[in-house]
């Protein structure tokens, strides 16, 4: 069962409490702090009285416990099935070395995977995703991941979008994956600027100098926001709100069929936001800010000009 108390925040919290209590008596303040740290907002109201009133006879009044070992739990079959399933994912090669025959050996033989590659597929994904099978790519990925964890700078040689060779000194902060692009990017900063490098474009990458953490500018991504109205026809409201669900957003009803939505986005992705909004056609109308509205208008104006188009084309079958 995927929804089970075995995986619950309460069980995890009690395990953490008992892990401490098997070593030494736990005082009430510590217990409270642990509940606040591990469980939900109102969990303290449940967990503390349950111990105090003896409903969960796992902690004695003096803060000791009859439990003798630091609590652990074997993996459930579901967890093993899921692990076996992700082992078949091509991206797993980035994390786990292949066996002697060049294939990854599943960690739990005899347990059927939760899903096989043919059970799932993705649509809308771009065709030029990263080549996870390439040994060079995997070496670069491993180096970058190590630098992220070890917090050391990298000297990177990469091909730019225009096929020029670029050299970058970079302190990687994290790897960003886009399912749509099926690509990893390294996000970090250099001596002067924030840097983003596609892992697939790295030609060489190596640890830089003595490996001391670079002191550069950690700029915050500039954010923008766009407000638009949605006319709820052809199920547009639901489509729009699902489509923009991964952003911070706020929606409110203007009248019976019209809704106003405000979405916050990274300024770097403004062009992408423009075309995503255009994709909804006349059911979405950008209302603010003015410069964003103008970006849409400019595209439509160009379209009008380039439109020798179906309804105007001489001899075209209507």
């Amino acid at each position: 069962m995927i929804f089970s108390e075995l995986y619950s925040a309460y069980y995890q919290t009690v395990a953490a409490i008992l892990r401490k209590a098997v070593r030494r008596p736990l005082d009430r303040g510590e217990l409270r702090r642990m509940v606040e740290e591990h469980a939900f907002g109102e969990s303290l109201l449940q967990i503390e009285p349950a111990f105090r009133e003896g409903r969960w006879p796992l902690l004695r009044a003096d803060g000791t416990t009859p439990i003798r070992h630091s609590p652990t739990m074997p993996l459930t079959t579901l967890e093993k099935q899921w692990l076996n399933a992700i082992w078949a994912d091509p991206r797993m090669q980035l994390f786990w070395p292949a066996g002697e025959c060049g294939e990854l050996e599943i960690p739990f033989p005899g347990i059927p995977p939760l899903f096989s590659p043919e059970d799932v597929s993705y649509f809308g994904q771009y065709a030029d995703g990263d080549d996870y099978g390439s040994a060079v790519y995997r070496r670069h990925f491993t180096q970058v991941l190590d630098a992220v964890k070890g917090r050391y700078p990298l000297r990177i040689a990469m091909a730019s979008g225009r096929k020029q060779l670029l050299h970058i000194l970079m302190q990687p902060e994290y790897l960003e994956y886009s399912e749509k692009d099926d690509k990893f990017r390294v996000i970090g900063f250099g001596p002067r600027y924030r840097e983003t490098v596609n892992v697939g474009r790295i030609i060489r990458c190596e640890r830089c100098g003595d490996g001391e953490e670079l002191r550069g500018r950690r700029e915050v991504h500039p954010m923008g926001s766009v407000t638009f109205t949605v006319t709820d026809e052809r199920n547009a409201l639901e489509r729009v709100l699902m489509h923009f669900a991964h952003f911070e957003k706020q929606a409110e009803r203007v009248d019976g069929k019209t809704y106003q939505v405000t979405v916050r986005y990274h300024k770097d992705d403004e062009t992408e936001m423009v075309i995503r909004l255009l994709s909804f056609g006349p059911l979405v109308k950008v209302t603010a800010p003015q410069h964003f509205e103008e970006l849409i208008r400019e595209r439509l104006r160009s379209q009008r000009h380039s439109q020798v188009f179906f309804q105007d084309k001489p001899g075209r079958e209507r």
Partner: protein
Amino acid sequence: MPYSELVKNFGRIRDYLREFYVYGFKSREEYTQKSARSYDDERRRVESWLGDYMRFGKTAEGKNVFLSIDSRVSQRNPLYQAWKAKSFTDGDITLHFYLMDILYEPGTALSLSEIMDELDGRLAGFQQPRLFDESTVRKKLKEYEREGIAVSEKRGRVLYFRRADGKAWEELVGRGVWDCLEFFSEAAPCGVIGSYLLDRKETESGQGNGSRQGNGSGRQSGDRRQSGGRRQSGGRRQNGRQGNGCFAFKHHYITGAMDSEIVCLLLQAMREKRFVALETARGFHGRETVPEAVPLQLRFGVQSGRQYLMAYVPGKRRVRSFRTDNLGTVKLGENCGQFDEYRKIFQGMLPHIWGVSTQGRSGQRLEHVEFTVAYGFHEQHIHWRLVRERQCGTVEQLDEHTSRFQAEVYDASELVPWIRTFLCRIVDIHFSDKKLEEQFGKDLEQMYQMYGLGPEEGEKR
């Protein structure tokens, strides 16, 4: 029943989470499915689990509550918290920790009576010791066998229990499994299971994983932030990202997490090649019961955030799609002897499926769509964009300034939103479904008007 932040059935909270996260504009009065008290309880629960992401707004219609999450910033899917709120009894949790402790040593296999003796001994130290009867403990051990965490073996006429072997997992931990779990818990189907595994990082290896960064909101339960207000999470870095993990995710739809139970059942049905009975709770066809369907594949829309089941429906003699968020219940049925045959049929259809639709409105078996885009000397990337995004279509470069896309698909209307992303460059377009072509033109005209672009070159502002 007094209020508890834990729930017995996930289905009960699923609709509320969806409303708060995806929609978020309804006021309290509009939640009419249940009583006002039920709404208040569910809202309070969601606030307890996801307080950091809860926002409150005020409109003319009243106060509304919504969840606002930038999944590019929050490294772990906050909605997984809801999956960790399953209710249990006092006996469940007490037995869990004692049984796991009593059977702790790998070589330890005990009979039920030995376990009972040990359990009674441990509990005897409490002032009012709780006593468990044998059948309760046996039931719990059997449940743990089904879950895979306990194993039983018969020696003579006595049944002995021990903990399941944990060596393979220990080996994975020893070889550094955490990085891949951090990634796949967000990127793989049923990622919540990866999140469960990540929770072990803290409790079993003593390392914090930051996955609880969304919790602890109770400390600020009085902090009812107005919309737009934000509290900085403890793990937030200077660049606005929350937590200290190695990965972040762009274009990352987290909504599917709410359907994990449904998805898990459908995956089981496919693995075991079984029929399912489906009941949809909402959607295009409204409430619908499909007594017999053969699940063939789950399709995830990486640009729409939607998850679909592709299934063969014997009653309709065709493959059709069901949105997983519209599915209320899935019941596993008998084995399907023709599973492989149906899946082969479906795989043969894939070169003509743009998204999930297997039937257009035109009545044609396959619909044709083609369009041509023009671009300037320095805009060759437009051609490559077409190539990259073509899916089951083909792209032909006609000259150095124009490229043509074409496809034969079951439902050409599925391509329309994508085609509109090329607006400003489309010089020719053609659909075999003339009604669709007409609608495309009308929509475009309407867009010109909406943005004050008059019928001629002049603009109205």
